[in-house]
């Protein structure tokens, strides 16, 4: 079995957060968002980045990537509703920033940003 890379683990986390029902995400945009998210953690104030890296390691460690999707989504939900605020904050950060980075990639792909007119079908 191939070793799980950081990219694979982060990509899996984003997939579970953005697409919990498994409807499908754009592979290239997901890969771009994965890269962007690693950059965002690196770009945090260092005293926060250290904590976020440790927390991400804690979450993704302990076999997360080996779990079936349903159980991974349940683990996210447990952290999302946890009484421990740092766990809720962790999910909030990855969900919000993951959403923003993924849809930024979609926007760039589809040239949604500042088009001369709307897409086909737009009034």
């Amino acid at each position: 079995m191939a070793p799980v890379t950081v990219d694979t683990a982060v990509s899996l986390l984003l997939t579970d957060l953005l697409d919990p029902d498994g409807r499908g995400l754009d592979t290239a945009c997901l890969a771009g968002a994965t890269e962007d998210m690693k950059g965002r953690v690196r770009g945090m104030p260092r005293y926060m980045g250290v904590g976020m890296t440790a927390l991400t390691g804690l979450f993704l460690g302990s076999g997360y990537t080996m779990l079936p999707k349903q159980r991974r989504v349940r683990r996210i939900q447990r952290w999302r509703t946890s009484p421990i605020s740092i766990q809720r904050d962790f999910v909030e950060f990855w969900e919000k920033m993951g959403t923003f980075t993924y849809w930024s990639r979609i926007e760039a792909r589809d040239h949604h940003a500042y088009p001369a007119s709307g897409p086909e079908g737009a009034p």
Partner: protein
Amino acid sequence: MRKLEADVLIIGSGPGGAMTAAVLAEAGKHVMIIEEGDHVPVGATEPYSLEDMALKWRNGGLTPAFGPVKVTYVEGKCVGGASEINAALYHPPVPSVLDAWAAEYGIDDFGGAPLAEHIRAVEHEASVSPFPGSPGIASERLAAGAASLGWKSVPVQRFWKYDAQNPLGRRQSMTETYLPRAKAAGAVLQDGLKVKKLLFQGRRAVGAIATDREGQRVDLRAGKVVVCAGAVQTALILQRSGYGHRVGQTLTMNPMIRVAAEFGDRINEPVIGVPVQQIEAFKPSMTLGCSNGSLAHLALWLVGAPGDRERLLAEWWRLGVFYAKVMAKARGVVRNVPLFDEAFVSYKLGKDDLALLGLAAERLATVLLASGARSIVSPVPGAPAIRSLSDIPALRAGVEAGKAQVTAIHLHSTVPMGSEQKHCPADSYGKLRGLENVWVNDASLLPDTPGINPQGTILAIARRNAQHMLG
């Protein structure tokens, strides 16, 4: 080790620093402007895009302030500072607010009337202009909704220049206005240099220590130092330099909530940029208006409605993002984190502030429904969408309980000016108490939040203070 010298060292190239540099350089001073970030020309990036944030925003985007209610804030980190990343909206300083500051903080020769000539100069020099023609669908809808409720709304002017060749115009940020003027008068701008601390001999500053992009030390020498690095970074530089006097203890912000709203037909026209209509019926304590509605930002504000997100985003032109911003009484604290040399900001929204934010949320939802919105995604995570007036009390209660996502822009007041020595580290013209040749001339000086977008106020005050430095 590299050494740089000038008559006047200006730390920071945002509105305060750029204005100070232009005034002093044009008066014949040898000025050196030091900027931590990079130069990114206007138009080189899509506003509010990921690339824009990576290149021009500190920490690549939002930074959290810590407190019982989480508040995230933004700072510019590029040549031109916040003027390069904001919506370029211009709000004239409110005379009654300026007069109140003059009285409460004992600011000499200050207030609506004394500042009027500087305000007029800024409006002229920075090309403050109305949006030509129709302000767009979102603005028109908001205006109609407000009118139906009897609330005054206006299309806000912008720091923007329009001409026949470019009807969409061009942002008039610092890199387009005061920085070129300063450079034409001989000022030197060094980007990519982070100032660590000021150097003193007794009560006089002799310069500063900085590091370049490679981490190499650069020594800066000057006869006068003006710190204009923004409310957070100015406080940090002074703290790291050993200057006490309550610097960084009285931070103010303009907290806001944002919501995505769904309409029956087109509301979103990205070509317009941030729609300019704002409801001013409750100004300055509260402003309601339109926000950036790019696809990525729409997705972000739809996080609370995950089940609907894909369906809604498929017809993004029917979605808009709107905000309600309030003038909070809360005061935050800026501290330097030892070893990391980074800011730790704490900010505690009080009960009164949350009540005001709850009222603002209620009014925003009311006007959006009156403007034709079918549904509004609640800023309270997990709360149901607002589809009718009967849903609004729950929204207001959630915001008042501190459950909403709150962001903040417009940071000020970490080095308030005034003759009231106990609370004001800077005198009435920005000179630091106890030092012979160090001034602050940026948003830090505002003794309280002006409630409105402060760029016009900062520029006018910086012009006044820079002229005073010349004697």
